[in-house]
């Protein structure tokens, strides 16, 4: 303790932020910060050490299991591939524009074609695609689950009627839904100029089907648990049904709804990877699958990069939801 509190006493003229900084790095505060940062660091280092030592012992047909060093290297490699592709794409676009301008200069009525860059999507592109798909599926799930949850929560009879269905559909694996969703999408989404890829729709709908349950259940529980005194206030005020829902029921159940949304988003992200693998829709799941089929000596390292990325993004998504919850919910 004494060795840690060696920082000089701050003079009154020091600005407030500097003082706050100094306080953070001295005495008990430093100890607390240290404990907060140090222990997780130790945990991570221990894990990396174990991984480094254990990985070479595991032999597969594609060589030994990659250690942290190889995975790190492949991470860099994937980034380089991405920047290289971007450069090529920029060149392609520039050339295309130049050619089109030439054609238009010769003949202003000529029809020019603008083609997208035909190169394969890079790892980063796949991440962006996956995020887009998961958000689309999650938002659709929210749009369905919150209003339904409110209806179920408000009406006891409705709730009793629907509860067994919820309990049965909730534990269904995405892999079971996928073939059905694929067939239904192929059969119903027929258009000459489709706005979305079928594979995107399949993944998105699967994500929705698997992730809407926690939000639905939490919303209905939250709505049913509104303080009866507050409901009586609403009755005394003769609030209309919509005002009652908007001003009393919804705000009151926001904390529960958000807890459900966080669980839903976690499930959505997990389900998405599986759905993309099977539906062959672009995204991180397809990246993993392609690398697996590819079977080069680097494949395992690249899959490991994807695994870590998936975990990290899942963690970030949860944190973002937590931040939104803190902004929106009154009890935080």
């Amino acid at each position, binding site marked *: 303790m004494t060795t840690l509190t060696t920082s000089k006493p701050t003079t009154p003229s020091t600005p407030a932020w500097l003082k706050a900084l100094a306080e953070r790095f001295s005495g008990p505060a430093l100890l607390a910060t240290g404990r907060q940062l140090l222990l997780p660091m130790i945990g991570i280092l221990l894990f990396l050490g174990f991984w480094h030592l254990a990985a070479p012992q595991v032999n597969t047909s594609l060589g030994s299991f990659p250690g942290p060093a190889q995975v790190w290297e492949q991470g860099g490699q994937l980034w380089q591939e991405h920047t290289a592709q971007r450069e090529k794409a920029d060149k392609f676009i520039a050339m295309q524009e130049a050619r089109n301008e030439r054609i238009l200069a010769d003949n202003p009525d000529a029809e020019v074609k603008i083609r997208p860059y035909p190169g394969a999507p890079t790892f980063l592109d796949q991440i962006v695609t996956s995020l887009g798909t998961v958000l689309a599926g999650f938002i659709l799930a929210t749009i369905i689950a919150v209003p339904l949850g409110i209806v179920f929560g408000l009406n006891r009879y409705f709730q009793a009627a629907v509860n067994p269905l919820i309990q049965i559909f909730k534990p269904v694996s995405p892999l079971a839904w996928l073939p059905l969703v694929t067939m239904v999408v192929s059969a119903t989404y027929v258009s000459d100029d489709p706005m979305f890829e079928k594979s995107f729709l399949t993944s998105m709908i699967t994500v929705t089907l698997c992730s809407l349950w926690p939000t639905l259940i939490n919303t209905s529980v939250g709505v049913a648990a509104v303080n009866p005194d507050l409901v*009586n206030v609403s*009755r005394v005020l003769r609030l209309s049904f919509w005002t009652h829902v908007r001003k*009393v029921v919804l705000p009151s159940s*926001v904390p529960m709804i958000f807890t459900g949304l966080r669980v839903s988003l976690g499930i959505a992200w997990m389900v998405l990877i599986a759905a993309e693998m099977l539906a062959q829709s672009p995204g991180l799941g397809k990246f993993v699958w392609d690398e697996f089929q590819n079977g080069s000596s680097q494949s395992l390292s690249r899959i490991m990069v994807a695994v870590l990325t998936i975990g990290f993004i899942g963690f970030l998504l949860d944190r973002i939801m937590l931040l939104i919850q803190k902004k929106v919910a009154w009890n935080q």
Partner: protein
Amino acid sequence: MTKSHLELTGVEMAFDTPKGSFIALDNINLKIRKGEFVSLIGHSGCGKSTVLNIVAGLLQATRGGCVLDGHEVNSPGPERAVVFQNHALMPWLTVYENVELAVQQVFRRSMAKQERKDWINHNLELVNMAHAANKRPGEISGGMAQRVGIARALAMKPSVLLMDEPFGALDALTRAHLQDSLMEIQQDLNNTVIMITHDVDEAVLLSDRIIMMTNGPAATVGEDLRIDLPRPRNRVTLADDPTYVHYRQEVLRFLYEKQRKLEKITPRAASTREAASATGEKDRLTQAARA
């Protein structure tokens, strides 16, 4: 006054239970004049809250009914504003917004925007809560929150103010303070008030009339005591006043001799919290009896 302002006639309340119908209230008849301050007192479980909820329209009497100013009461409404025991403020709204919700709903058409704003602030000032207008219920004390609950009820300009043990959850000092404020406000506005209480002193100090209820099941009006004490009333000087002491004794005699609760105080299958509040209530009553 020939025509009564609020009238309950032959009110019976039965609840369906697994063991069959349970008659909570039986043949309650009450006539209340405009501007009268009426307390309902009785042992816990005698159906005081049920009577209040029937007047509020939150419950429907199974027989008989309630008429206010010539209209039958069959649903809740702002002209019968309720102050709940635990303030019942929306925890996500500020003090101001809580009163605003009521004012917006009741005077949306009859008041201009600025007028509504002034009216909200006026009511907050009435209960001395204007300084905390932007705080949330979680950030103020229980007594302050209860004041806001009263302000919200008053802001509806109710013809009857219904209070369900409004000061039951507060400590003795805060309670005394709020009782004094309530007396002042009631004298200014001349509202009709029906208040449920367990506190004999509170009932005698505040009321024009005390309705004492018999024990349930099938509870009904036991005695109707008129309190003829001049207003404004002062709790300190009244403590020695022989008329005041006499009224107190009347109520105590009713509660402890005529309607003595024979039930043991051992907590049964009932929830522990309910048992705790019931025994706390009894302690308070016995303390009052000793004083």
